[in-house]
C-alpha cells in the first residue's frame, strides 16, 4: 500500500497531481521512467510516468489527466488515502547528456513528464528551450516550473487565451529555421502532436526523441501489449522505451492500437456509474 501525501487539482480539475510515498521507487527513479499503478483489488494496471521525485523524502509525483475509469477513480482519492499497488521505476530513463541546445516540447498533460526530463537536461548543462501548449489558458499546467527550468519558454494555446495562439509546432518551426545549433528535440504529448513534430524535425534533420504511452499491463516485458513499430521492427515500449527516435515510430499504428479499448472504457465507466 502506498500513501498519497498530497493531492492537487490542476487545469480545472481535469488534471490531478499526486505526491505518493514510495521510498524505494523514489531512490531509483530517473527522468523519463514510469510506474505501473493498480488502485484497488478490481483495478486495472496502468502506466504513469514519474513527473518528479524526491529521494530524501521518498516521494514520487504523478500527474494525470482524468480520461477514463481508473483516472476518475484516482481523482476521487484524497490525500492520506492509499493506492494498492505501485511498481517501478520501469522503462529506460531518458538519455540525458550535455548536447548544447535542446528544445523540449510538451502538450497537454505531457508537460507534466516533460518538466522532469527538462530539469534533467538543464542539470546536465544544456541550454534548454521550452515550448508548452494546451487547448486554453486554464488547461495549461506547470508553467511556473517550466519557466524556472528553461532558458527560454514559449507558451501556446489553441484558442489564443494565453501566450501564442496556435499549436506548439509553429514556434518550433520558427526555432528550427532560425537556429542551427539545436541538437535535440524532445517531445511528449498527444500522439498527433508528436507525429507532426517529427514531420517537422525530419525536414530540418534534427534528432527527435518522443516518449510513448501505449496500453500496458505488467510493464516488465511480459505481455507484449505495448508493442510499437519503430524502424519497421517491433519494440516493447515498457522495456525498450518509453523513449524512441520519433522519426522511426509508426504513430498511425500506435494511435489505432491505443483506440482499441475505447468502447470497453466507456462500458467500464457506465458500469461504475450504475
Amino acid at each position, binding site marked *: 500500500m502506498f500513501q498519497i501525501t498530497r493531492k492537487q487539482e490542476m487545469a480545472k480539475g481535469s488534471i490531478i497531481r499526486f505526491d505518493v510515498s514510495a521510498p524505494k521507487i523514489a531512490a531509483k527513479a530517473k527522468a523519463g521512467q514510469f510506474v505501473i499503478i493498480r488502485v484497488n483489488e478490481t483495478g*486495472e494496471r496502468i502506466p504513469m510516468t514519474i513527473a518528479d521525485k524526491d529521494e530524501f523524502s521518498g516521494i514520487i509525483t504523478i500527474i494525470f489527466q482524468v480520461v477514463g475509469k481508473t483516472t476518475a477513480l484516482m481523482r476521487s482519492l484524497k490525500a492520506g488515502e492509499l493506492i494498492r499497488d505501485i511498481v517501478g521505476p520501469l522503462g529506460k530513463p531518458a538519455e540525458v547528456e550535455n548536447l548544447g541546445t535542446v528544445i523540449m516540447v510538451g502538450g497537454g498533460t505531457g508537460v507534466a513528464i516533460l518538466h522532469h526530463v527538462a530539469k534533467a537536461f538543464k542539470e546536465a548543462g544544456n541550454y534548454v528551450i521550452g515550448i508548452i501548449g494546451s487547448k486554453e489558458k486554464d488547461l495549461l499546467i506547470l508553467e511556473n516550473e517550466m519557466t524556472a527550468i528553461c532558458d527560454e519558454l514559449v507558451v501556446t494555446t489553441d484558442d489564443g487565451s494565453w501566450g501564442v495562439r496556435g499549436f506548439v509546432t509553429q514556434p518550433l518551426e520558427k526555432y528550427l529555421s532560425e537556429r542551427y545549433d539545436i541538437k535535440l528535440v524532445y517531445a511528449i504529448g498527444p500522439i498527433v502532436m508528436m507525429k507532426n513534430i517529427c514531420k517537422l524535425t525530419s525536414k530540418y534533420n534534427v534528432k527527435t526523441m518522443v516518449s510513448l504511452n501505449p496500453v500496458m499491463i505488467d510493464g516488465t516485458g511480459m*505481455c507484449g501489449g505495448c508493442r*510499437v513499430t519503430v524502424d519497421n521492427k517491433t519494440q516493447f515500449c515498457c*522495456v525498450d522505451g518509453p523513449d524512441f527516435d520519433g522519426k522511426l515510430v509508426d504513430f498511425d499504428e500506435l494511435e489505432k*492500437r491505443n483506440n482499441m479499448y475505447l468502447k470497453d472504457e466507456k462500458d467500464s465507466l457506465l458500469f461504475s456509474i450504475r
Partner: protein
Amino acid sequence: MFEHDVKYLKFKTYLNTYCPHCRNTFNYERKEEKYLVFKAKYKEQDIDLKLSPYLDVFDIDSTIPIIEGDILEDLICPKCKNSLIVTNLVCGECASPVAEVIITAFSKLIPYYFCLKHGCEWHGLKKADENKIKLKIPRQEMPEQDQKLRVTNHTEVPYGYTSELAHLEAGRCLQCKTPKCVDGCPVNIDIPNFIRLITEEKLDDAAKKIKERNVLPAICGRVCPQESQCEKLCILGTRDKPVAIGHLERFLADYERKMGLVKIPVIKTKLNKKIAVVGSGPAGLTVAADLQQLGYQVTIFEALHEPGGVLVYGIPEFRLPKSIVSFEIEYLKEMGVRVELNHIIGKTITVDELLQHFSAVFIGVGAGLPVFMNLEGENLGNIFSSNEYLTRMNLMKAYKFPEYDTPKPKGNKIVVIGGGNVAMDSARTALRTGSSDVTIVYRRSRQELPARHEEIRHAGEEGIKFMLLTNPVRFLGTDQNMVKGMECIRMKLGEPDASGRRRPIPIEGSNFILDCDMVVVAVGTSSNPVLFQTTPDINRNKWGYVEVNPETNETSKEFVYAGGDIVTGSATVIEAMGAGRIAANAINKKLSAV
C-alpha cells in the same frame, strides 16, 4: 459419490490364454463385450468360454444350451486336441473336475485352473499369482465436469478421485522393488511408498510422504506432465496404462487440505542468515520452502501484485484453482517466509543491493518475454501474445469485466497459434468467455502437439477445432487496424530436425485465408533481460538464459543461484521445482561452510 462402478469393469488388457500342451493361444478379445474369450472344443463342437474381468468366473457362449450347474466333461484344445481337464486336481469349492489353461501376466506364464461346473467361481490361482494379474483393474480416470457444462464456467474440469477410486487405483501399483517411476520424477518423490500408504488407508501419512520431497503437491498433481515423467517409466505402462500417479498425488494433497490436516512444520534451528528469492513461481517457492525449513530467513520478491508467478498469471482457473496457489503461499508465509510484492529486481532493487543484505540470492524469474513470429500485420488490434491474453484473463480477471476494470479481449472467430499447453489454455479460456468458434493452428501434425494429452483431449471434447499442418504467413486488417483474417500455408512433414521431430515444410501455392477477428500467438517465450541489465556479471548463453553449474545451480556470480525456465527455457513446473531443490541444497552447503 460418483457412478464409477461401470468404469472398473472395463476390460482392456493384453492378457493371453494358452493351451497348456501346445501353447497355442486360445483367446481373442471381444471388444464390445469387454470380456476375454477363448476357444475350446466341447462334445466335438467349438464353444467360446468367456473369462470375466476378474478371471474368476467363466461363462459359455455357444449354441449348446448349458444350464447353471452343468459340468463340462470333455473340454479339449481345438488345435492339438489334447484334453484340458486335469485329472489330479478337483475344484476347491465343489470338488468338480478342473480344467487348466495358461495365462500370461507380465511376460510370465501362470497356470490358471477353473472349475468345470458352470457357475462355480473357483479358480486355482495362488495369492502371489493373483497379485500378478492386477492388470485386470484398468486405470481409473477422474470423474470430470460434463463437457457442455464446463465451457460455461471457470470451475476445474476434473472433480478429482473419490477415496474409493483412489484406493482402487493405488491397488494397481505393483510395488516394484526397484521402482523406475521415482527416477522419472524431477524431485524424486517416494512414489511406491505413498501409494502403498493409500492402500493401507493411511492417507494422512501418504500425504506427508509426498510433502517430504514436494512442497506443492496440489499444484504438481494438476499441472505436471506425468505421462512424460513418472508415469512414462511405470512398468505397467508397457502392457497396459501406467498407474495414475498424478491423480493420486492430487487426491492426497486435496484430501490433506480439505480435511485440515496440513501442519506448519516446526523449524528447529534458527540460522541468522537471510536468503533472497527473486520470483514467486514454482522454482522460487521450492527454494523458499526448503531453506526456511532449514532455519534460514527467506524473503521472496515478486514483480507483480500477486505471488505465484506463472501459476497465477498463466495457468487458468479451470486447470489450477487460484485458491490452491494462495493456500500454498499462505503455508509458506506461516512458516515465516516473507513475500515482497511489486518489487522488480533489476529496477526497484538490483541483485548487487540484495547481496548487501542477503547471504545468497536465488533467481527464478522464469522465461517471461513473449515470442512473436515477426509476420506482416502482427501488431494489428486484437492480436495478443498468449502472455497478454492469459494475464488479462487470469491475473487481472478480465473475464469479470466490467466488474473488474481490465477489458476482456473478445472475438467471434478466434484463432490460437501454437500447440503447447499455453495454446490449449488460451483456446479453452476463449471458449469459456463467450466465443464459440475457436481454432488452434499448428504447423506440425497431431502427434507432435507438445501439449499434455489430457489438455488436448479436453480441448477437443469442448469443441475446439484443430487446424494442423498449417502455418500463418501474414495477418490482414480492417481499416480500423483490427485483425480480420490470417493468410495461412499448408505444411507437410519432412526429415527429422535437431529436436528429433519431423520438420514442417511449406507446400508451395497452398495459401488460403482464414477469417478471424481475434488471434492469440502462443508460440513460446524467451528470457526477460530486465534483471540482467543491471547485473552484467551473470553469464548468459546466446538465447539469454542464465548459465549455471548444473551440480549447484550457481551462476557465474558468487552467491547468486538460478533455476527454472530462466536457465532451461520454457519447461515444466516440476522441473523448475527440481532446479530449485538443487539450488537450495547447494546454498545450504555453501553457507554452512562459510
